[in-house]
């Protein structure tokens, strides 16, 4: 039995828990990273589906369903604008994280709200785009390329919507209790991920003919 050169646990406690884990990354942040990794494959599957089907009504003769393709209806300038808005929301998210790290909760609320608004604008744009497409005759079940398009962009839209709800709840919550900087950071990870996915979708779905 040897003496063991260990200090009592209490003396080793750190003021914040980011150092408390084996990797030095907090549990919540790690969990978000793992979740986002998982989500990559979700979008991977949906993007593959779209790529497989995007030319389906045109390239295979004799198929049932509308010959209209989603890509024929794209309004690139409009979608570029909503994409820009979504990308700007990443900037406001960064500013929110920056604010909360500096301990400025008022400014954090401001930037989080701005992120919410920008995300909401993007969603509104998506809703407008969808209704426009439907008006021009491309419904969800018109043909397989339409289904794939709506499913992919719809799943992304759902991610944005959930992000907005989380941001909104965070703003509301921060009136009641101070948010931890890291909570906002983790939220930011999610938000940036959703934005990056949109960049990929925009490039693959809208820009590549």
């Amino acid at each position, binding site marked *: 039995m040897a003496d063991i050169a260990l200090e009592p646990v209490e003396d080793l406690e750190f003021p914040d828990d980011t150092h408390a884990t084996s990797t030095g990354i907090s549990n919540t942040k790690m969990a978000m990273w793992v979740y986002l990794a998982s989500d990559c494959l979700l979008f991977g599957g949906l993007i593959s589906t779209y790529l497989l089907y995007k030319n389906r009504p045109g390239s295979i003769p004799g198929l049932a369903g509308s010959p209209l393709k989603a890509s024929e209806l794209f309004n690139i300038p409009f979608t570029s604008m909503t994409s820009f808005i979504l990308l700007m929301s990443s900037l406001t998210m960064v500013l929110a994280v920056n604010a909360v790290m500096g301990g400025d909760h008022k400014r954090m609320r401001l930037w989080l709200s701005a992120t919410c608004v920008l995300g909401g604008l993007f969603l509104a744009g998506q809703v407008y785009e969808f209704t426009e497409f439907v008006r021009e005759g491309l419904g969800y079940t018109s043909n397989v390329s339409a289904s794939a398009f709506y499913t992919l962009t719809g799943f992304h839209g759902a991610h944005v919507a959930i992000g907005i709800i989380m941001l909104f*709840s965070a703003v509301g919550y921060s009136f009641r209790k101070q948010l931890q900087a890291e909570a906002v950071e983790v939220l930011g990870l999610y938000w940036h991920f959703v934005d990056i996915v949109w960049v990929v979708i925009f490039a693959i779905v809208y820009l590549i003919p």
Partner: protein
Amino acid sequence: MALVEDHPPLELGSGAATVSKPLGVFARPTATHGWKSWLFTVDHKKIGIMYGVAAFFFLLVGGSEALLIRTQLAVPGAKLLSADVYNQVFTMHGVTMIFLAVMPMQSAFANYLLPLQIGARDVAFPRMNALSLWIWLSGAIFFNTSWFLGGGANGGWFNYAPNSGVTFSPGHGIDFYAVGLIIMGIGSTVSAINLTVTVLNMRSPGMTLMRMPVFTWMAFVTQVLLVFALPVITVALFLLMFDRLFDATFFDASKGGDPFLWQNLFWIFGHPEVYIMILPSFGIVSEIIPVFSRKPIFGYPFMVGSGIAIGFMGWGVWAHHMFASGIGTLSVLAFSLATMFIAVPTGVKILNWMATMYGGRIRLSTPMLFSIGLVAMFTIGGLSGVTHAFAPADAQQTDTYYIVAHFHYVLFGGALLGLFGGMYFWWPKMFGHFLNEKMGKWNFWIMLVGFNLTFGPMHILGLQGMMRRTYTYTEGQGFNFWNLIATIGAFTIAVSLILFMVNVALSYRRHKANPVDPGPDPWDARSPEWMIPSPAPEHNFDELPVVEEVDEFWHRKYGHDENGRLVRIARTEDVVQKGDATDVHLPSPSYWPLVMACGFPFVGYGLIFNYWWLVPGVLLIILGIFGWVFEPSTDPSAGHHHDDDYPTDDRPDAVDGSEDAPTDAEAGDGEVDGSSDDADERTLEPAMASTEETTVG
């Protein structure tokens, strides 16, 4: 020798427990005994046991379905099941055994053992752990209610398109399949993320990745596979659901859909899934064999490395399930080669287990019997698997009973035998008493004989040309004899399962009548979970073990003399923990995981039958989320050591004005702040506090 480090137990500031009311309405659950303590628990051990019980129940359900199949096939032209019911029965059997029996039973062991083996007090997110159990269970029950609501799924467990479309499967069975598996997938994803973070982040001081027990490693690889495989099947299931419920045409070839897409998505998930089912069992026998051979695992780094290699290569072989579907010569060649290669790391494992046993002092206790059974039976299954890797041979074998024989040898002979071995091995740790050894041996031998009687003949039947998924055969086909043998074998397996249940009941009664404490370390074992009393105390470790090497616990008990012989250097009683620490703070129980999980079946019924059902479902889920968010992961009156918060508000929320006892951090730092206690609440895991070297004397 290194002993348990000498930390004083954590101190909790005094103060009577005040029940906090997170939403100002609901009190937290506080029961520590009875059914309430199970229903609302966040303790990983109780959750693990509940996973096990539920999985065993579904094993019996799936087993009954198997008996129906075998009875139908016992004689030619049997009339027990109609073709339609037969289709449902074998589909439900497959899905039940995979998603409702084997996977959750692996979860049971992973939940129970991972924190114990890495020296943690709980998983990273205890409430999320409860959530994943309840979501999985709600999905499993939802899926099985299809029997009473128009019949089960009937397209085989992989439900190939276009058969899965509304045209060919107009009933609701496949809707239940799609929605049920999505629900269970959500639960499994949550669990996989949670356990991945647990292994990465919650290891006790000195427990580097390459000091983790092999089971932990294999379970960890499994969780990573789940994290990446589940979203793929989720996409496939969503597309199927949209096809069936919202008239999309993703898999309808007449409207431009591509049935291959389903096959690819399904098997990109489906092949890793095979390893998801087998790797934890590999881990279990890698724990058992060294203990009962009294030798360290042979080639620990290779054991770990081959597990990781299997995990990686498992992503590159999915199309070998599709050799007969016309994927093209190049694809067939590539996937054929990859499939042959994946036999290499598996072979490494087999050889390492045998090398571990070689020259060891082998005790043939029940867990060891099951483990050796796994090694032998899995090898047979692996060899028949290699024969499928040759595409020309596979073209002959596809959809015959040869395939059925193969995957039962790897899943029953591999996964399930390992799980039973694990149950016999860890039973004393989980419940504080042994299972009867004599009955255990009978259990093993009857199961082994029954298993080989059932599935051995299927090799022959398959090569004779008997197709799987055909509800009967005729007199002149020459299938009579081996089918009868297989049916006798299936009932023999049923006998062994009954014997297991009798064993559980009798061992429990004997224990109640005459309790004999098995002690912390009944098997003279090697990994950290044996350093604590049996059954494991609620707080796991009095002091978190400081780990210096693989098989830390063994090396605290045994050393080598100058001649290199194994000698005992400490009595087991001196190196184990007493389990009597009283002031360790644990995450508090919660209603919300259960509330949230209850919403999912309603959503499922809503999607399938009537959208009005969505309302209660969605409301329950939202209520669950908000209750959860506004409830601190640990009752502020009890103190805590875990982060378990929803990402939106990563902080506990003490209710203003409640008379919270100061937590240890507050007490320790002297920073008691009456107005805001958020930062102070987040005390450290003592586990992570120190990685200092201990001096070994």
